[in-house]
């Protein structure tokens, strides 16, 4: 018994002795002195929480109230050298207009797994073309191009699985990526269901110091549906803060021997760090009916406050239905928020 009391006494004494008020500055100095090189090499001041950010999208469409349309709560950080994790939780409107919680993406990226190979593992937007892999706040417009919504998925094609990419060791950018994914099972025609696969080959050249031409070949396949895509983007930087971008994607879908195609072109000019304006032309076959091709013209003006906070007005005109829709959108971002290079 005496031994136990003595042991407890020693434990309590040591706890109280150790639990003296800690001089954080002194502690930090000590830690820096102990591993100065490590701290010096760190890009940021020493703390170990991941980056947290919040992106909100408030939107008002013609005839509808202005409301929070979508929100992202994002956690990002490195798990290990060259291995990072990105989690995008969302609040988005469901079919009846209620906000529903979901996981938009949650994946791990090994940026350099083995000799120019990398992989991504988890729930991920499929990197098909230039837009499907992006989050709505990264687009230059308020609505997804019609052909992507029709051929891939209304909210963008997402899968659970793995993709492997290989960066060719060449003087220009050439990267190949293949992926194996699972989507919720669906009987609806043209919807990717169960196991499906993706492939992308992308390249990019700096034509000179002020311009770049990028292109990609894309494909997604399941047992019933194959969608092929070609994207081409030209970017010109005429001034220090101005930019002209011409983005084009053509998609071809084969689903149960039904062949359809569609495309969009988006021309956008950024005047300076605050203002840009763009024009998009959409054309897409319907998956349900033959000879039913929609055509739409969309104009966009965006005023950026910061990289993640902006005001946008978009007006679309349906050339077949002779109807128009105007959207006012406010995107706001809080906290450090980043995306992989597209």
């Amino acid at each position, binding site marked *: 018994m005496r031994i136990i009391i003595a042991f407890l006494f020693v434990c309590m004494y040591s706890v109280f002795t150790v639990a003296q008020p800690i001089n954080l500055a002194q502690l930090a100095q000590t830690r820096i002195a102990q591993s100065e090189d490590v701290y010096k090499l760190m890009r940021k001041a020493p703390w170990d929480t991941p980056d947290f950010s919040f992106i909100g999208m408030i939107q008002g469409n013609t005839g509808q109230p202005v409301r929070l349309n979508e929100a992202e709560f994002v956690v990002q950080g490195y798990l290990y050298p060259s291995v990072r994790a990105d989690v995008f939780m969302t609040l988005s409107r469901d079919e009846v207009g209620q906000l529903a919680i979901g996981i938009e993406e949650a994946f791990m990226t090994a940026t350099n797994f083995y000799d120019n190979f990398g992989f991504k593992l988890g729930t991920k937007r499929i990197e098909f073309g230039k837009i499907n892999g992006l989050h709505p706040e990264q687009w230059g417009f308020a609505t997804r191009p019609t052909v992507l919504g029709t051929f891939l998925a209304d909210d963008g094609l997402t899968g659970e699985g793995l993709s492997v990419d290989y*960066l060719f060791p060449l003087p*220009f950018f050439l990267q190949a990526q293949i992926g194996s994914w699972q989507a919720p099972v669906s009987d609806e025609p043209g919807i990717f269901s169960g196991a499906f696969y993706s492939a992308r080959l992308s390249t990019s050249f700096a034509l000179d110091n002020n311009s770049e031409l990028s292109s990609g070949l894309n494909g997604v396949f399941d047992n019933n549906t194959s969608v092929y895509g070609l994207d081409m983007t030209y970017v010109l930087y005429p001034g*220090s803060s101005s930019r002209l971008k011409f983005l084009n994607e053509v998609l071809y879908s084969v689903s149960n021997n039904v062949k359809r195609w569609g495309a969009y072109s988006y021309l956008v000019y950024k005047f300076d760090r605050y203002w840009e304006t763009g024009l998009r032309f959409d054309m897409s076959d319907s998956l349900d009916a033959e000879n039913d091709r929609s055509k739409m013209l969309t104009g966009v003006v965006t005023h950026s406050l910061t990289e993640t906070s902006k005001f946008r007005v978009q007006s679309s005109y349906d050339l077949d239905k002779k109807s128009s829709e105007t959207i006012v959108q406010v995107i706001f971002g809080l906290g450090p928020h980043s995306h992989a290079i597209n």
Partner: protein
Amino acid sequence: MRLINLFLGILFVSSTLQAGPLQVVTSTMDLANIAASIGKDRVSVVSLTSGAQDLHQVDARPSMVARVHQADIVVRIGMDLDSWMDSIMDAAKNPRARLGKPGYVDASLHIKKLQIPQGKIDGSMGDIHIFGNPHYWLDPENGKVIAKSILDALIAISPQEKAFFVHNYTAYVQELDGKIINWKSALKPYKGMKILTFHRGWPYFAERFGFSVLGEIEPKPGIPPSPGHLLSLIAQVKRDRIQFIIAAPYDNLRACEKVAKDAGIPLLVLATSAGGMTGVVNYTDIFDYSVKQITTKVSL
């Protein structure tokens, strides 16, 4: 089989292309110019940006990924000014130039940093850099600190060339020292002058040459000026006897010209990087040009 042969052929060609001088990739022209001055013909240096670009507004481009992928050394400004480099570094899959490797150089590492924010910062303060003001290369003394960081990396990657690199570094620092004496001498009569700048980008320059920055045309970093703010600046120029305005070529020069014209003081448009203006080719040209502008356009 033909496809496999083609693939192997591409790999072979690409591997042979990597032989030759050390490949140095920098985020800015100034870093490139300093690296080239030390490495000379033993390095091939590429800057990912031009000197005319606003470094706050750089798009990460896929072609940059290919360049960083092939680099033996990557030199960046750091302090989050070139945070666009992060996504490029991740995509480039270059184990030689990852954080912590000898081929990764954050040129800000040994800089005595100014304007490090204290306490909580948020968007109400404008575009604040949390690690301090990142425009440190505009103090030519910091050019020597940058050169030393690059020298260390070159020696670490190519130790057999140490004597060559040290010789070039010493010569570069001596040249810079000589020029700094001349620049300070030329600007000595202007020391203590009160100035305005468009962006909060000149504290290192001002501190080195003895100018007192009393305000910015931007009400807060990255926030465009309102007419009311411009009017208050015009009044401040007269009240505080501010003597000139400094702006970069990519700044909102119309706002600067408005204040300069209405307040009756000169506006000096100065290069912030090598290649940023006609006649500003090298890092030291930034200061040659700035000194010439001040001594010819500002009355004593």
